[in-house]
C-alpha cells in the first residue's frame, strides 16, 4: 500500500471513488457524445445516480436521496417524456454535421479544464476530510437538514417555493394549447 498517485496513497476508498467517479465521468461524456437523445438522457440518469452515491460517501445522505428523488425520479423522467413526446429519439435525430464550432468548443473546454485544474487541484490534493465525530455524522441526516432549512434558511426556502410555484404556472401556460 505504498503506491501513490499524484502524491496520494492508493487506498481501497480511493479505488472505490475511482470506480464510481470514473463511471460518472464516463456517463458525463456519454451525455455529450451520444447522438441519440434518449441515450444521452440515460447516461445522465446514471450519472445522477452515481452522484447520489458520491453524496452518500460525503455523509450527505439526505441530499443523496433527494438527488435520486428529484433528478432521476422527476426531472429526468420529464426529459425522457419530452424526448419521446417529440419523438426526437430515432427517426428525427438531428443531423449534426461537422462544424468549426465543435472543434473550437472542445478546444476551449479543454483549455478551461486545464487552466482551472492547474490552478485549483494541486492544492486540494492534500486536503483530508474532517474527523467524523458522532455529532458530525448527523449533519447530513434529515433532522439536521430540516432544522436548518426551516430556521436559518426559512426565507430562501419560501422564496424558492414561490419560484417553484411560478415555474408551475409558467410551464402550464407554455404547454397548454388553449387556456
Amino acid at each position, binding site marked *: 500500500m505504498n503506491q501513490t498517485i499524484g502524491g496520494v496513497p492508493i487506498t481501497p476508498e480511493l479505488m472505490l471513488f475511482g470506480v464510481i467517479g470514473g463511471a460518472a465521468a464516463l456517463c458525463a461524456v456519454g451525455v455529450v457524445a451520444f447522438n441519440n437523445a434518449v441515450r444521452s438522457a440515460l447516461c445522465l440518469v446514471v450519472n445522477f445516480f452515481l452522484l447520489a452515491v458520491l453524496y452518500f460517501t460525503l455523509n450527505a445522505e439526505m441530499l443523496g436521496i433527494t438527488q435520486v428523488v428529484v433528478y432521476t425520479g422527476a426531472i429526468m423522467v420529464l426529459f425522457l417524456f419530452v424526448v419521446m413526446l417529440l419523438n426526437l429519439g430515432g427517426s428525427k435525430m438531428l443531423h449534426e454535421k461537422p462544424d468549426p464550432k465543435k472543434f*473550437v*468548443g472542445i478546444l*476551449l*473546454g479543454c483549455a*478551461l479544464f486545464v*487552466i482551472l485544474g492547474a*490552478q485549483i487541484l494541486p492544492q486540494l490534493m492534500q486536503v483530508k476530510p474532517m474527523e467524523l465525530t458522532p455529532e458530525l455524522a448527523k449533519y447530513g441526516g434529515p433532522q439536521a437538514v430540516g432544522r436548518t432549512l426551516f430556521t436559518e434558511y426559512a426565507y430562501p426556502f419560501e422564496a424558492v417555493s414561490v419560484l417553484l410555484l411560478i415555474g408551475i404556472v409558467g410551464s402550464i401556460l407554455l404547454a397548454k394549447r388553449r387556456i
Partner: protein
Amino acid sequence: MNYESIWLVLLFPILGFLLQAMLGSRIEKALGRRVLGGLAVLPIVLSFAVGLVITLGTKAGSSHVSTLGYWINAGGLSVPFEFVVDPLSMTMVLIITGVGALIHLYATGYMNEDKEYARFFTYMNLFIASMLILVLGGNLLLLYVGWEGVGLCSYLLIGFWYKDMANAKAANKAFIVNRIGDWGLSLALMLIVAFLLSSHADIAGGRYLSYDTMLPALQHGLAGHAGLATAIALLLFVGAAGKSAQFPLYIWLPDAMAGPTPVSALIHAATMVTSGVVLLNRMHVVFEMSPVASAIVCVIGAFTALFAALIAFGQSDIKKVLAYSTVSQLGFMFIACGAGAYWAGMFHVTTHAFFKALLFLGAGAVIHAMAHNQDMRNYGNLRKYLPITFWTMVIGTLAICAVGIPGVFGFAGMYSKEAILGGALANTHAQINGVQLGQIAGWVGLGVAALTSIYMTRLTCLTFLGTEERWRSIPAQHAEHHAPDHEEGDATEARHVLDENHTPHEVPISMWLPLVILAVLSIGGGYFLANGNAFESWLYPAGLPVLGKVSTEPSGIPLAMYSMIAAIGGIVLGLAFYLKGLPKNQGFDESKWSVLRRAERDQFGYDHALTVAAIEGGGDISRGLWKWVDVGLIDGIVQGLGTVSGAAGQLLKRWQTGYIRLYALMMLLGLIGLIGFFALEIQKGVR
C-alpha cells in the same frame, strides 16, 4: 390620555378617508346617504374629542414631542415622524376638528342633492388629515407634507364640479399660484438646513428641521446674520403668502369659491388659509431676528387688507364678497404677526374661524335656499324666509365688524382685532431705517376695519333686508345657473331654477345646527378667550424669546374708542346706503356703475394684468425656449447621441447572429480569458 396619544387624532380622519374612498359608494348604496354622512362626520368628532382631552392636559407654554418612527435618515439629517403637542398645535387641532366637524355636519345637508357624495367626503376627510399633519407635524418637513396635502385637497375640492370648465380652471389657478408659495417654503427649508449644517450647529441626532431643536439653534446662529435671517424670513413669508392669499398671490382665493360652499367655509376661510399664520407663529424666532422682514410682512398685510376690502365693494356675488373679506382679514393677521403680536394673529385666526365659517355657512344656506344662485342682486328680504340663517348671519356680521363695548363685552372679532391693532400701533419692531412701518400698518388697519363694517353691512342688507324680493322679477331664461353638476335633461333641474315662482325655504336641521353653534361661539368665543389675557398666556406665557413681552396697548392712543367708532360708524354708513335695497348704480347694468366700483370689480386690473403677463409673456419665453434651447440644443444632443449609437449598433449587430451556441462559445472565450488572466497574475505573484 397624555400627549403620546396624539396620533389618535390623526388616525380617525385617515380611517374615515380610507373608508369613504374604498367603501363609500357601496355604503351609500347599501345603507343610504344618512349613514355615509354620519360616517364622514364621526371621525372628525372623535378627533375633536381626543384633541379636547389632550388639550385639557396640556399646560400653557409646554411642548411635547411624540415620535412615531423614523422617516428620513440621510447624511447627518434626520427627519422623524414626530408630532408636537403644544398650545399652538392644540389650538389649531381644536379649530380644525371642531369647526371641521360642524362643517362636515353642514355638508351632509348641503351636498345632499349631489351625486358624488362619497367622493366629496373622501376629499374632506383627507383634507382634515392633511391639515392635522400640517399643524401637528414636529418638523418643517412634516409641515411641508401637510402643506402639500392641503394644497392637493384644496385643488380637488375647488374642482369638485370639474365638468364645468370654469371650476377646473379655478382649481388649476389655485394649485399653480400655491406652487409659488411652496417654492418659497421649500427654499426656506433648504436654506435653514444648509445654514444649520454649515454653521455646525450643535443639534443632537441631526434633527435639523424639528422645531424643538431648530428654533433655539436658529436664534443662536442667526444673531450675527441679519441678512440671512431676512432671507429665510422672507422666503417663509412667500410660502405663507401663497397659502394665506396675501397680496401678490391672493388671486387664487376668490376664484376658489367655485367649490362647494362647505369647502369655502372650511378650507378657504377657517383652516387652510390660516396655515400661513400658523407657519409664522411656528417660525417667529426668524422674524424676530429680522425687523426688515417683519416690516415687509406688516406692509403686505396692511396693503392686502385694504386692497381686498376695496375690491369687496365691487362684488355682487355673495361668496366673492366673503372671499375678499377673508383675504382682508388674513391681512390683519399678518399685520399682527409682522408687528410681533403673534398671539394676536392666532387669536384672530381662532375668532375668524368661528365667524367666517359662520358667514360662509350662512351664505351657503342662502345659496341653498336660492337654488344655487349666488348673485346678491337677486336676493332681498330673505329674513322673512330664512329667520335662523338671518339671525346667525347678523351675529356673524357683528362679530367680523368687531362690534362691542370695550371693557364690558364684545363680539368675538372685537377682542382679536383690537389686539391686532393695538399690537401694531404699540410696536417698534417692524421698521426699516427708522420708518415705523408697523405703526403705519396699524393705522391702515383701523381704516380697513371701518371699510369691513361697511361692506359686511352691504352684504347683510342686500341679502336679508329690504322689502323688495328681487328674484321675483327675473324671468326664467335669465337665471344664472350655478349648479353645473346637474346634467341636462335632469328631471330635478326644473326645481333648481331661480325664477319668479321660487319660494325659499329654511334649511334642514343638519345645516342650521352648525350655524347656531358657530353663532354662539362668535358671540362668546372672544370674550371667553380674551378674559384676563387667557389666550396670550396660553400661547406665549413667557413672551417671545427675542422681543420679550409684546405690548398690545399703545400709549397715548384711545384705540378702543377709535375702533368702536370705526365699527359702529361703518355699520351706520352701510345701513344708510343699503337699507333701502339695491342702489340704482349697483344694478345689473354695469355701465351705470361708478368708475371706482368697476375698477374694484375688476380687482383694479391686477388679476387681468397678471394673467396676461403670465400667459402671453410666459408663452413668449416658452416659445423661445422651445425653438432655441429645446429643438436646437437638447434635441440636437439627444438625436446626435441617438444617431451615433445607432451607427455603432449597426456595426455591432453583426455579432448578434441568433445562434445561441455561438454566444455560449463567446462566453466561454471570455471566461477563459478572465480566468487565464487571473491565473497569470497569481503565477506572477507566486514567483
